[in-house]
């Protein structure tokens, strides 16, 4: 018998029902790794953005960092960090993968924040300084809160990208959605159907996240002045 790779709707639905406990668990892992990557990535990203806006030497360092990260594939970064980090610090697979994803996202997030900060009217800094506030205080109290709001839409978009990118954590052994579907595909030989099921889960997660991002944006614009 030849492995028929023509899609079977019957198999798709029966597998969808049979596998949902595993997929739910894996989806939870996908969510966790995405959240970890996004939070860590935002922290690093803000830091890199501030470097970019500070003195010329640090700016060059930040530029090199961003160029390297944006100039190499995520999967290579994951492997470099996953195996490279180990020589320095012992991380669990989850944290190693999250950290790799975070580093990747940080370069993009840094550019988002830099853009948002630079989009704030120069008059805001001048107003702060003219009141006797230091550069740091003005940054923290006046510029950043406004920049943050402005960064929400592109950040939301980046988070959606991060969610999809978390699928590559499969290759360093994280049991997230894609990893699970690989296993189930191999076990049941329902290759096509299983990967389509994985796609459905991703699509659902992306849509939920999109919805959340839109809601946050709307909230901000309502409470906005």
């Amino acid at each position, binding site marked *: 018998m030849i492995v028929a790779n023509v899609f079977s709707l019957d198999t798709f639905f029966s597998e969808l029902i049979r*596998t949902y406990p595993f997929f739910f668990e894996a989806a939870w892992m996908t969510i966790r790794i995405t959240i970890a990557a996004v939070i860590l990535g935002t922290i690093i990203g803000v830091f890199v953005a501030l470097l970019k806006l500070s003195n010329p030497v640090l700016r060059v360092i930040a530029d090199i960092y961003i160029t390297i990260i944006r100039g190499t594939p995520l999967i290579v970064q994951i492997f470099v960090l996953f*195996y490279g980090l180990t020589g320095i610090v012992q991380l669990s697979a989850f944290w190693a993968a999250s950290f790799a994803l975070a580093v990747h996202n940080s370069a993009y997030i840094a550019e988002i924040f830099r853009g948002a900060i630079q989009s704030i009217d120069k008059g805001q800094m001048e107003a702060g300084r003219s009141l006797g506030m230091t550069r740091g205080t003005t940054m923290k109290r006046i510029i950043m809160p406004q920049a943050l709001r402005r960064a929400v839409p592109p950040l939301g978009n980046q988070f959606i990208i991060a969610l999809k990118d978390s699928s590559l954590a499969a290759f360093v052994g994280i049991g997230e959605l894609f990893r699970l579907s690989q*296993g189930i595909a191999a*076990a049941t030989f329902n290759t096509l159907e299983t990967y389509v099921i994985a796609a459905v889960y991703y699509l659902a997660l992306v849509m939920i996240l999109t919805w959340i991002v839109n809601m946050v944006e709307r909230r901000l614009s309502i409470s906005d002045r």
Partner: protein
Amino acid sequence: ACGEGDEEETDTGADGDGEETADDNGEETDSPGDEVDYDEYTLEDGKFVFALSGEYRPFNYVDETNNLVGFDVDIGMAIADELGLEGEPYQITWNSIILGLNDNRYDAIIGSMGITEERQENVAFSDPYYYSGAQVFTRSDSDIQSLEDIDENTEVAVAEGTTYHTMIQDYSEEIVTYDSDVVALQTLSQGRHDAVITDRLVGLINIEDQGLDIELRGDLIDSEEMAIALRHDEDELMEGINQALENIRESGLYEEINQRYFDEDIGEGN
């Protein structure tokens, strides 16, 4: 010895692993020559974590309920039992499996790893726990009858980082690599590539289980000794594992596991 025993008990008690481990320890202290606390030699308290690719059916694979199963898994669990530890399989891509071991991500590789000289530079091998060999597989309509028919233009699919991958480089220049032998077999059956080199048993079982449209061709290419890999200088653990292997062979557990998966006896080399 008594003092050690006491320590053991308090240790495992503190682990919160429960009485089972304590019981096991108790049993083992009964068995002759086994007074070592292997917990000291593993990374995680009370656990023996062994790595495999999970993509090497029937030796190790994920079943449809998302559990890691297979011959290697059963062997690994049996050995863990003998060591008085809780066995836990760990899935990782094959071509990263030795790195992960040396990165201290797990205690051992029990994943159908054949003993080779290159690998011996990086890991230490136990006594072999089964014997097998490589074989050529092709679709039933293929002209390729044996390894001799493979030339530089034959597209051969293998799993990345396997001994088959290394070996076939002397024959073909058109090598396609996958993360898994099973995927290589599947894609061959789908009409991609001209041949696959993989383990004879892996090929045969998958042809049968999946109804793949492919056949075994020619003789066994070589014979491989499959062994458990540890980091170098883990002599105590190595000793324990070899002892455990011997124990399960003697107790008949090995044979029982063998029969779960294979009709033939894979435990003895020729």
